[in-house]
């Protein structure tokens, strides 16, 4: 199998990560499209040096989150991409969830959007139910620090949902 095909296969198996990261860090649809392209490009550049010691998902999360957090610095590069490519790497065959799930998901996404860059990364990894060790590997802090931060985020998240629920 050619490296390009192997790479596309890895992306195909992990495309959800790209979408979730881009969605968490970019509100604007056009920016999001460009961010996904930038992530894909950076993943491809690092594909040769992929360290099999880590899972594909860990490797993808590291690069995707690093690119997403640094994306504000890339305004002029973004323009270059947009001029060249007008389509989107990720598309939906169908959209829409059940109404209740949709509302709750919007609330959850709003909550994520309000978080600072590093907390946002932590929150995404927590929701993905990654182990503390994997989160520590991706973010680069100790496992115990991950545990402390996750507990804090859980409390804020539960409070937020309870407040909103009480409002309705």
């Amino acid at each position: 199998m050619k490296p390009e095909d192997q790479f596309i296969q890895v992306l195909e198996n992990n495309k959800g990560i790209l979408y979730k990261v881009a969605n968490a860090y970019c509100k604007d649809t056009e920016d999001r499209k460009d961010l996904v392209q930038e992530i894909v490009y950076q993943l491809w550049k690092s594909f040769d040096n992929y360290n099999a010691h880590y899972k594909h998902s860990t490797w993808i999360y590291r690069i995707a989150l690093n690119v997403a957090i640094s994306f504000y610095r890339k305004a002029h590069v973004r323009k270059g991409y947009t001029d060249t490519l007008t389509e989107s790497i990720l598309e939906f065959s169908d959209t829409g969830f059940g109404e209740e799930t949709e509302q709750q998901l919007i609330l959850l996404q709003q909550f994520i959007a309000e978080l600072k860059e590093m907390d946002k990364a932590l929150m995404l990894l927590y929701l993905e139910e990654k182990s503390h060790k994997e989160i520590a590997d991706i973010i680069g802090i100790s496992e115990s620090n991950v545990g402390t931060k996750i507990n804090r985020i859980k409390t804020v998240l539960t409070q937020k949902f309870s407040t909103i629920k009480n409002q309705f």
Partner: protein
Amino acid sequence: MNQTEILNIWKAYDKKLDETLLLNKVLTTEVIKLKTKSLLSSMKPIKVFTIFIGLFWVFVVGTIVGNLFLYAYSSVTLFFLLSAGIQILLTSIALVIYLYQLHLIQQVDITEPLVKTQKRLTSLKSSTLWVSRILFLQLPLWTTFYLSESMFRSGNMFYILINGTVTILFTFLAVWLFINIRFENRDKKWFKLIFEGKEWTPVMKAMELNHQIENFEKE
């Protein structure tokens, strides 16, 4: 709503993405074949060019000032020699910052953990502010290089007084800016006035992120 319910919302979202999200393989192939330079590699030539110009400037002006000092000391003023000498020294410090930035560009690896990579990237960006601090330090030199001993001897006190006041004010301003241009003062009016504009936005954001990472590691 408890944690399990919240995690279930995310699971449902994940499942839905799995079922409906399509990867455009043609476009993916196009993207990976693009010869677009990454931001970091595109920054390298600018830094190298600036270092080259800076070195050239330091070499040429340094040689001229050095030769004037050694062979024509009596025909040039001490004010000029000192002003030019300090200017060369400050430019050399700015060059060291650019070399440090090149070193950071070499060190950045996007596949490393977030804290490590982002620290390097934000340090790289926020070190740009150091260049501004150095540039501001040059301010008083522009009010002294043309002075001469004969000006003092001729005794135009009014002119000397005005020039001296401007030099003292510029020195105070330069030192004050050198000390106060830092992240903690980002919300002050004078800071925003100096660093407003699109080109400074990424630097400010980098500094904010740098501060955020420091706190993130501490907790």
